[in-house]
């Protein structure tokens, strides 16, 4: 199990220079946008810091910025030969030397290892090559085990400077992985690194969902020969059997205040949405009537729940108030719409719809307007889950053969696999930011 997964990490950030006025370079809310070309110059290792340390920092940062989808990263290998070995922070007067490299933004940095390699200091500076000016500089320091997290924070800061909102590089994704005849729950960082196994029980473990504080995961398991709902700490400790009606106890969704869990309970061939307090008490049925209901997802204000119902004869997405009243149908196109996921920004709902026998990711406005199809490959694409900033969607896809976790920008661009694997991953769930 994950013994020391949540090591208490602390480090300091110093912002020692800042721009006179904030400027947003990229409107990422536009349906399409052109990626900003950013030059990443060679990082400088100060004192006796080995060059390999700078290379490691550089690699994590370059991958983060690429994964953000907002940048066209021009790394050292894509610089003119004369600039490849140029390291450290340039002064503003010499910025025009970088113009032949074709970037609009330049990022330079330095590393320093102290205390016999136990502590690090990282410093980065961002320059606007079009206006030939310095934008921001920041320094991060901390113990070595916080390095990856510090670099993610740095990438978040770069994204903030360019887009006006910080990135999600300090988030995690939980998912189920096929192992033998069962499935286990895993988590990884946003960049696919730092993979940890949460369950290790050889059972069938399904549909993970994060608690809003990022400390627990709700999931379904067959441990007691029934699909019961369990809660577990992200380090694999404190397994708790949470809901165990004979029948289905599946598809959990935590309320934004962390006090309730909505789930689907199915008995005698009929399923409904239930609400149970996080302490296990006060179970109540929200949906009544003839239909089968499934897959609840909370609106970010905690006032509404979107869910799937077959009351019209085919599975469609519906929205109701959190007390089960005021039900309205959201999707009318297609005959099979499931897996709704409400954007943390509140404006859109992603779901999985069937088109000509294949499953694809769609998004739709909360008022039913602006239906957009996000995937169009020859595979199946299922289980969408939004990033906490609502700018990305994780989902599973078997477009390359076995099912893998993919990430895309919320406009459908920049679709890429989360982590290289032989496949068998499904049901991704995106955490909130770990601050």
């Amino acid at each position, binding site marked *: 199990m994950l013994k020391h997964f949540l090591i208490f990490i602390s480090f300091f950030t110093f912002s020692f220079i800042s721009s006179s006025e904030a400027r947003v370079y990229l409107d990422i809310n536009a349906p399409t946008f052109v990626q900003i070309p950013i030059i990443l110059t060679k990082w400088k290792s100060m004192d006796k810091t080995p060059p390999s340390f700078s290379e490691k920092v550089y690699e994590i940062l370059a991958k983060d910025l690429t994964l953000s989808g907002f940048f066209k990263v021009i790394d050292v290998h894509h610089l003119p030969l004369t600039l490849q070995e140029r390291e450290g922070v340039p002064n503003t007067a010499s910025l025009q030397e970088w113009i032949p490299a074709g970037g609009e933004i330049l990022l330079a940095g330095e590393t320093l290892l102290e205390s016999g390699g136990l502590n690090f200091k990282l410093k980065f500076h961002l320059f606007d090559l079009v206006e030939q000016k310095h934008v921001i500089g920041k320094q991060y320091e901390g113990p070595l085990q916080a390095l990856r997290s510090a670099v993610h924070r740095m990438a978040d800061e770069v994204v903030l400077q360019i887009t006006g909102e910080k990135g999600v590089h300090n988030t995690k994704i939980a998912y189920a992985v096929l192992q033998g005849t*069962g499935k286990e729950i895993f988590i990884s960082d946003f960049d696919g690194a730092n993979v940890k196994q949460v369950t290790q029980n050889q059972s069938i473990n399904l549909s993970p969902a994060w608690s809003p504080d990022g400390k627990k995961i709700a999931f379904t398991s067959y441990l007691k020969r029934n699909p019961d709902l369990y809660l577990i700490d992200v380090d694999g400790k404190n397994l708790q059997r949470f809901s165990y009606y004979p029948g*289905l106890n599946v598809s959990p969704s935590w309320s934004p205040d962390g006090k309730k869990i909505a789930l689907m309970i199915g008995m005698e061939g009929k399923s409904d949405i239930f609400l149970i307090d996080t302490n296990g008490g006060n179970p109540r049925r929200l949906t009544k009537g003839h239909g*089968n209901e499934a897959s609840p997802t909370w609106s970010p204000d905690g006032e509404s729940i979107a869910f799937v119902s077959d009351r019209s004869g085919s599975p469609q997405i519906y929205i109701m108030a959190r007390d089960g009243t005021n039900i309205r149908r959201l999707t009318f196109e297609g005959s099979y719409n499931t897996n709704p996921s409400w954007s943390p920004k509140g404006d859109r709902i992603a779901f999985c719809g069937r088109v000509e026998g294949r499953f694809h990711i769609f998004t739709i406005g909360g008022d039913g307007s602006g239906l957009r199809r996000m995937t169009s490959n020859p595979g199946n694409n299922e289980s969408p889950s939004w990033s906490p900033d609502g700018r990305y969607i994780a989902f599973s896809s078997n477009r390359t053969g076995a099912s893998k976790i993919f990430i895309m920008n919320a406009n459908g661009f920049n679709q890429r696999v989360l982590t290289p694997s032989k496949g068998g991953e499904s049901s991704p769930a995106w955490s909130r930011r770990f601050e």
Partner: protein
Amino acid sequence: MTRKSLTITILILCLGLIMIGCPKKPVVREEPSAKKEEAAKIEAERMAKERESKAKEEFEKSLVAKRTPGIEGEVFESSLLKDNHFDFDKYDIRPKDVAILRENAALLKKYPKVKIQIEGHCDERGTVEYNLALGERRATSTKNYLVSLGISADRLSTISYGKERPLDPGHNEEAWTKNRRAHTVITAK
């Protein structure tokens, strides 16, 4: 003895036999018949018992203990209890599977102590949650059919495995057809 005297003797003996036999006819004839019938009955019972014990032996021989890692408890599978299958996205009992369920029900009537769990399974198409619900409905419709054939509901439990436990891991119509099934395991014998 002359030939004539022999003939007479036989006739007299025969007459005598007839004369002796006549008044006692009901008794004489009934006694061996009742014995025969009783014997036949006993024999039939013995054979029935033998058949039953043979069948029971056959049933018991057919049982295979099944333990699954990560899933609590031991169950048994019997080759005498057959799977029924379903059409894509459907959970109603197909007419061609009625005979299978009648046979399963007959077996359950023969062994009233046996309790079973009906597992609903699906093919890989569709989402995890949707298939869990579909599998639950397949198991339930199979259970309800057995109840309609006279099996007590408290002997029948259901579980849905959705698309999580395919019989055939293939990604084609042949595999899907096999995987859309209700499978029976024995939870008490």
